[in-house]
């Protein structure tokens, strides 16, 4: 019997609140080291934490989006350990009474759907950053005290692909509810993997925890590597040691960091500086009412508009795209037409697999205007594409450019007939071929007409007129 992989993920996501979790310092990435901190987030003697209510709201928002139960009594605890990036020598976190418990989300791998249960979502503060320099190790506290939510899954994940699908769904949801920018490169989304092996019907095996997974690809590779490593150890009759392992992305291997024996006793206890959070039904309902529509609901809406499931999924992969689509069809209600254009031309422009830094440099208003011109036949496809290039990243209005440059397609039958008659007369050989039934020659004639009209001829009309002329001669 083969080994079954059991995976649980701990995802840390920085919340995009304006200020830090327990002080009024700005919550922003980067900056000159130690320029964005204060006595509270550098742990000066006497400084006290004051809870940022927005962080609580964001955590609850995410909790509600993934179906968690919101604990109406929630407590911050101190997780005590020493490290230079942790200025108070404890992290304010949650243990016994997290903000959100339960819930989960549905993933799909190879057409198979699966529900991954969550254990909890709790709120905590981020640590600073160590910088290793020639002069030694330095600490930057700019990130210290940034609010984080830790989303802990149950061990319901059974493959690397499922893990990635789960992460993608989680990221999409975080972006939908607008609580995090989810930039893995900047560390605003981080993931630790707990993995063990067992045989069907037997209890779970000893697990290892993997850290330093900085991309979804790293998660995928690390899981595959670690599952194989554990299987090899077990097959040889060895034992898995409960330990924390570091993923080395260049080597493509995991290395032991510390075993359970030297793991820390965090001596958690309720933080006496922070009073327990009491959350009313009214507050929860208010947050619930303000939740944006999530991907599933939007897919349903789009299919009701007549889009295919595949198209609806493409549009809803990212909230940014879906919002963009919604905005365009408010001004130009041709869902299928707009969808095709977004999934084709716009995606080509974004040209990135990592949607997280995708930047649509064209307003919905500009796009709606462009598509209207194209759809009504004022401009042809070639011109529409050319215009898209031209106005991308500007605030130019397509309509105005069409007028200024005279880009409207020529649908004047008489004029086109004159041009075509001329071309027909000059190319008797091609006419003969066309008459013989070689449809490819049609393209030649259209090309010639376009050349003569600077690409503005209405291709459909050109075809019709040409057929008429050929028949007549």
């Amino acid at each position, binding site marked *: 019997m083969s080994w079954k992989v059991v995976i649980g993920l701990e995802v840390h996501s920085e919340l995009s609140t304006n200020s830090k979790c327990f002080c009024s310092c700005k919550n922003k990435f980067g900056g000159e080291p130690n320029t964005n901190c204060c006595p509270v987030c550098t742990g000066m003697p*006497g400084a*006290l934490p004051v809870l940022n209510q927005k962080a609580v709201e964001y955590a609850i928002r995410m909790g509600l989006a993934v179906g968690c139960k919101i604990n109406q009594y929630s407590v911050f605890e101190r997780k005590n350990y020493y490290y230079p990036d942790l200025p108070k020598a404890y992290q304010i976190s949650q243990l016994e009474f997290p903000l959100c418990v339960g819930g989960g989300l549905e993933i799909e791998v190879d057409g198979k759907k699966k529900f991954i249960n969550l254990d909890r979502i709790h709120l905590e503060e981020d640590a600073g950053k160590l910088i290793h320099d020639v002069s030694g190790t330095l600490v930057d506290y700019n990130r210290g005290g940034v609010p984080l939510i830790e989303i802990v899954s149950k061990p319901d994940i059974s493959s690397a692909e499922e893990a990635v699908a789960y992460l993608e769904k989680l990221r999409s949801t975080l972006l939908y509810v607008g609580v995090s920018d989810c930039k893995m490169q900047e560390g605003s989304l981080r993931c630790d993997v707990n993995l063990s092996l067992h045989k069907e019907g037997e209890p779970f095996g000893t697990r290892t925890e993997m850290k330093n997974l900085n991309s979804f690809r790293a998660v995928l590779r690390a899981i595959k590597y670690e599952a194989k490593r554990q299987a090899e150890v077990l097959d040889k009759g060895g034992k898995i040691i409960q330990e924390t392992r570091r993923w080395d992305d260049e080597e493509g291997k995991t290395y032991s960091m510390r075993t359970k024996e030297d793991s820390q006793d965090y001596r958690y*206890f309720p933080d006496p500086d922070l009073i327990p959070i009491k959350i009313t039904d009214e507050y929860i309902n208010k947050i619930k009412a303000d939740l944006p529509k999530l991907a599933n609901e939007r897919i349903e809406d789009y299919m009701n508009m007549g889009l295919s499931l595949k198209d609806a999924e493409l549009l809803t992969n990212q909230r940014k795209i879906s919002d963009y689509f919604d905005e365009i069809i408010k001004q130009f209600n041709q869902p299928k037409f707009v969808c095709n254009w977004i999934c084709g031309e716009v995606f080509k422009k974004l040209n990135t697999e990592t949607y997280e830094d995708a930047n649509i440099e064209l307003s919905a208003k500009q796009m709606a205007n462009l598509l209207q011109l194209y759809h009504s036949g004022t401009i042809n496809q070639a011109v529409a594409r050319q215009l898209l290039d031209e106005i991308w990243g500007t605030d130019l209005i397509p309509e105005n450019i069409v007028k200024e440059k005279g880009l409207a397609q020529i649908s004047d039958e008489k004029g086109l007939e004159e041009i075509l008659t001329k071309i027909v007369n000059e190319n008797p050989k091609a006419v003969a071929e066309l008459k013989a039934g070689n449809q490819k020659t049609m393209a030649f004639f259209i090309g010639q007409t376009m050349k003569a009209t600077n690409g503005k001829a209405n291709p459909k009309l050109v075809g019709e007129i040409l057929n008429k002329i050929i028949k007549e001669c």
Partner: protein
Amino acid sequence: MNYLDMNLWQVKELLDKGEVTSEQLTSMCFEQIEKTKEINALLSLCKESALKTAKEIDEKRKKGEKLGALAGIPVVLKDNINYINTKTTCASKFLENWVSPFTATCAQKLIDAGAVIIGKANMDEFAMGSSTENSAFGVTKNPCNTAYVPGGSSGGSAASVASKQCFASLGTDTGGSIREPASFCGVVGLKPTYGRVSRSGVVAFASSLDQVGPFTRCAKDSAIMLSVLAGKDELDMTSSSVEVKNYVQEIKGDVKGLKIGIAKQFFSDKLDDEVKTKIQNAINVLTKNGATTVEIDLPSIDVALAVYYIVSSAEAASNLARFDGIRYGVRAKNYEDLVDLYVKSRTQGFGKEVKRRIMLGNYVLSSGYFDAFYRKAKKVQKIIKQEFLEAFKKCDIIISPTTATTAFKIGEKSDDHVAMYLNDIFTVPINIAGLPAMSIPCGVSEKNGMPIGMQIIAPHFEEGRIFNVADFYENNKEVQ
């Protein structure tokens, strides 16, 4: 007439009348500090800034500008209270040269009320102790008799008021650290209700028990001080938004109908006979004037000390973990690696008592012991609090001795930690229950000439009752 012998409210009137200036008072205080240097009450002085502030206040007064309740009054801060650009050492070698980057809310409130901060007072290191013998910068001596301790941990603050170096001072009280030294030095010391005064900027010992309060020469002065200090602070989530009263107006000059709760647990055989007699005499002053006594029962306060040492040490171990040698304070010169840096810096920076509490605190929080100690202690804490709430259904205030004995001699208990800890048996339950309590002088021992203190305890946020009773006693004690 010696202004320094006066109460705060008296010099306040004279300042208002223009009979004396703040600059004169401030200079007198600095002269007195020099004369009484031997008691080692203060760790640092703010001479330049104090005289500058005093002059500014005098100018404003001359111009007829509106002034705060403490305009021109010289005051002292305990050295665990941040005051920007001054050293805040917590009487620890660890913070010997640490300069505050910000001002504590309580200090800022004094400043905003026009007070002149003249110095920072000695204390037991990080407020851990009952005698000020744990200071890294030498013991403070009791102004009544320099062979005796002034009590602690706010010994410097108490001694400073007692030796007329200032008109009021701030201390902090986690288990008796204001009331015990007040009792030993013969001054008035108030521990307000937990949450009444902001802790922001006060270096924490045990966050759930710490409370800032004033030392003064009389109850009325204490009321003036609390009126300035009290109130909700956006920088301290544990500060309370219960309405702040004008505490001076709570002094009615009358105790008719007052029900005084007397618990046998506060009058056990551990109590010195002489202390017992003096407290009884004090209670008689009140009952002769219309107050009555009622017996109450506080069966669990005997275990309050155990609860206290578990909870306070646990919080202290965590609160003091930030002193790691990375950002400020002592950093060991030679170390091999990160752990060695931590160990050596903390070993060099902390005194014995602080180390003892850190070890105790980490022990009770460690996995496998948490439920047996910390969780159980928190449960007992609730019971103790409940017993007080029950008792207050029968009485308006509770009176007890502040300490079982008068001040002891320097060195007398420094090797007997349990004896030292037992010193706080009457004060600790008050912190455990979060109640307000004051120690006021109620006589002097005939055996050693040292002051005796009476503790007046009120329900949560009822400091007004304390001021009224204390003030009444002060004004009527001579005519027994």
